[in-house]
């Protein structure tokens, strides 16, 4: 639902870096989005196509890489990926402790842009 606002902000970041790098056109935009964050990929591209019209980022392809939700075990310190949406208890993959907590998976980053 908030993809429009997010994409407006994304375009500003992209244009700022592209201009600073002396680019004449942005070819692609690489994002890294954590699995815990809700973002509908298709809408980001659609809004980007719309908002970037007439800018050097017009026509750029948005590539979204999802980074997994990682949990850390409070008992043994082991980090492991797990689905935060599971109805099952999340147990440590090594020691089976239930004392686990989300440590990453909320990334919302522009990683790199490809430009001409």
């Amino acid at each position, binding site marked *: 639902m908030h993809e429009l606002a997010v994409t407006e902000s994304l375009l500003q970041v992209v244009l700022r870096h592209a201009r600073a790098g002396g680019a004449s056109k942005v070819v692609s935009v690489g994002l890294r989005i954590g699995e815990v964050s809700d973002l509908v990929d298709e809408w980001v591209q659609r809004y980007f196509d719309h908002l970037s019209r007439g800018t050097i980022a017009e026509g750029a392809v948005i590539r979204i890489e999802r980074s997994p939700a990682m949990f850390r075990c*409070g008992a043994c310190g082991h980090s492991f990926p797990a689905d935060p949406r599971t109805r099952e208890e999340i147990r440590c993959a090594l020691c089976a402790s239930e004392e686990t907590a989300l440590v990453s998976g*909320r990334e919302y980053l*522009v990683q790199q*842009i490809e430009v001409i």
Partner: protein
Amino acid sequence: MVEIRLIEVREEILAENQQEAGDIRAELRRRGVYMLNLMSSPGSGKTSLILRTLRELKNTFRFAVIEGDIDAVVDAEKVVGEGIPAVQIRTGGACHLDAPMIAAALKELDLAALDCIIIENVGNLVCPAEFDTGAERKAVILSVPEGDDKPLKYPLIFSVCDLLVVNKIDYLEGSDFNPEALKERVLRLNPGMRILALSCRTGEGVSDWIRWLTDEISAFRKGMAGGPVKDR
């Protein structure tokens, strides 16, 4: 031949919002005004909790409310009815509040005459979670009729908040809502989350909330080096 170059960006998508939110937080700390961002689904009790809070604490702290709900006219009128300043943000159907909207709303308030601002965010468990408003703390309300599985469907909001208020506990009896399952699901996303259970309707548990907010505002005011700066 056209050469494609790679530019490393490594910047938050919402960098500009975060920058402005940081500026708001710094300014409110300087002025000694505690701001709480209250989020929930529509109908889970944001307005009820705010009205209850104003009735209990309006003689202890000086409050203002920033109303962001899409249909906030009614809510703002209720708040003003309590004798409390309210700023209504016309989101034009937007699904969340962001830092620039809050910055504009703060200009409508006399910060020197306030101790606490409560933001009533847009009723939505998805979008508001992603946008820092500049508030000192974030709280989410989950009401019993919504079910104990909401942290599974909307993990982000439960992972970014400082406090979970479980409202409408007067509906617990006869329901299949499992408070223990909820607690387990929330704490694995966010081990630091405080959880309070209450009913705005019956008043059960409300005193725990009042104590939490009172302690928060007091600790915030004590924590400021040299005390708050008041420009009067």
